[in-house]
């Protein structure tokens, strides 16, 4: 029983990272119809920013997260405005190609700047946590989960309560109608991508705290984001939160299968994704459009 509770806790805490990785990816996919293959690279950029600020300025890693968000927003905005907007109406394959290329460029720039060393942020309180009997709740993943939820909530707020967010929603519903009522598409696209990149940046900061990063570490995160968004369902931030936590839980229980079970943890998660696609194509919580 204790083991079961601990596993649930570990799964939910790991899910926090997946939520953070997933929300930005889901936003860009849902609104711009871009499966952003550079998402993982943007995550790693965020991780390096946090690492750099932590090692040179000795900032608390959680305080660097707003910096990650702002820096990645600016970068993402510029990227969409200057590059991706040019092919936004082209077939899906072109956006695949372009974002894949951007991924390679970002990764190799990181290699040039930071080298291929593995980096990780380990503050003094890393590894400490609450203990209830033999159940442990470590601080860093707990705060990370909180950050991921807060990030999702603020994204939902921006999308549903602000003028810019409503414009983004309008575009997601009907691009041409949105343009007809006077929404500046280029700007709104860029803001959307910027928001997605900002979320990726925050996710990267969290990942640098929990795991180790290297310029080429981004790829699995793109994949995880993809699964998380499909699990939860496209088009709603809350759905991605559910998807991320579900993914974390499935992974934890998959890994705890005795013997070589953990080898199949990923396969189990992907199997679940396929199952969801077959039985509920809109995702666990999604709205079908």
């Amino acid at each position, binding site marked *: 029983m204790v083991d079961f509770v601990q596993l649930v806790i570990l799964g939910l805490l790991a899910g926090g990272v997946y939520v953070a990785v997933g929300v930005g990816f889901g936003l860009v996919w849902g609104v711009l119809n871009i499966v952003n293959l550079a998402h993982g690279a943007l995550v790693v950029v965020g991780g390096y920013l946090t690492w750099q600020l932590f090692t040179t300025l000795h900032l608390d890693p959680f305080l660097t997260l707003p910096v990650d968000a702002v820096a990645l927003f600016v970068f993402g905005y510029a990227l969409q405005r200057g590059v991706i907007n040019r092919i936004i109406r082209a077939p899906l394959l072109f956006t695949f190609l372009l974002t894949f290329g951007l991924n390679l460029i970002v990764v190799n720039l990181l290699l040039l700047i930071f080298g291929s*060393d593995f980096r990780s942020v380990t503050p003094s309180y890393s590894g400490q946590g609450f203990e209830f009997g033999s159940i442990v709740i470590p601080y860093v993943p707990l705060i990370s989960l909180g950050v991921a939820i807060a990030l999702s909530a603020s994204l939902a707020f921006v999308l549903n309560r602000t003028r810019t967010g409503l414009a983004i929603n309008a575009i997601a519903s009907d691009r041409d109608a949105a343009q007809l009522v006077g929404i500046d598409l280029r700007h709104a696209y860029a803001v959307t991508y910027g928001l997605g990149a900002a979320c990726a940046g925050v996710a990267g900061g969290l990942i640098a705290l929990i795991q*180790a990063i290297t310029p080429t570490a981004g790829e699995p995160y793109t994949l995880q984001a993809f699964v998380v968004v499909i699990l939860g369902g496209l088009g709603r931030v809350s759905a991605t939160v559910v998807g991320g936590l579900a993914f974390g839980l499935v992974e934890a229980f998959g890994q705890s299968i005795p013997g070589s079970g*953990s080898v199949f943890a990923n396969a189990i998660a992907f199997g679940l994704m396929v199952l969801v696609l077959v039985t509920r194509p809109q995702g666990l919580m999604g709205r079908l459009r």
Partner: protein
Amino acid sequence: MTVRRLALLAVAAVAVMACGGSGSGGPTTGSTIVLGAPLGLTGALTKESTLTQQGYNLWLDWINARGGILVNGVKHPVQIKYYDDTSNANQSAVLMQKLITEDKANFLLGPYGSAATATDAAIAEQNQIPMVEANGAAQSIFNQGYKYTFGVLSPANKYLQGVIDMAATLNPKPTTIAMLSADDNFSLEVANAINTYAPTKGMNVVLFKKYKNGATNLGAEVQAAKAANPDIVLNSGHLTEAIAINKAAKQQKLNAKIFAYSVGPSTPDFISALGADANFVYDGSQWTPQVKYTPAFYLTVAQYVAAYKAKYAGLGDPDYHVAESTAACLALQRAIENAGSLDPKKVRDALAALDVTVFFGQIKFDSRGINIYKPMVVEQIQSGVHHTVFPADIADAQPMYPTPAWDQR
């Protein structure tokens, strides 16, 4: 017309003089020996591949400063031709073939990692060109009956055996082991060897857990290890996984008398990523800057460390990936010298007969082509510094044992 022909003749004459002209006294300069090496200069194995390249280049500078490899009184300068295989084993094999057919490589140096070494070994065999490699320790490479692949490093099954040997000497003696292993060929060889070796030293593997190679989240595995309450926690995997396991162990209060990880702790990255949490961790290492071997040629261990620091300032001591890569070059050099020829078959035979000790240790190949004669050493990180703690005769520090609980550090 005649003037042009005359000029051509003169140029040709000068060229002939320059290339093959026989000067008097001292060795003459022969053709350049081209060595080919595909490396993962981008992609997931960039870090280790860069270290491999450093090891190769360190020797390259040294040999060319001496005019090249001496073959029958003629010095042949050396060139190493690198290609980026993007850390992809199949791509590595394609480039290896290109190095042989297009770049006319005389001999081959290995790529980084067991996977790429395995695919490259097949290419070396097909073309009957010797490949000396330093970064593929999986025995599966050497169980194919290949005759042209030689590995200077200790094979995978030895990686963590040193830790078990050391543990058997400690008091109180640890008896239970939890093994977390990645599911790639190399890691499983390392891990499975412990399954059979530990009982001979009076220890038992009470938990054996496989996880997906490259996994980033190992919380559930660490939880399973905690439930097994072992004296020794072993990881047979890679640097990222070692870091993830160490972080999770602290978070989830997994305490053990020994934490030992096969690959990872020996690199400076492990300490810089984990800070004080890296302390007390053991690893099995091919080589450390503290070992004491008496070299037959090339540099002593101390000179080697100094040469590395001079060429790659600011990177600290060379780690074992660098040293073993240099050792591969030394094995090839000595075999070419012994063969007295650049003929691939003769050099292959000279490699098979090689028995020489260099700063890296003894280099001698068994009938399969792997070096089973050099021992592995055990390192421990103590106060942020690597120390060699086993075998005792080459150690520079005592093991700090047992590892204190996380909340008592």
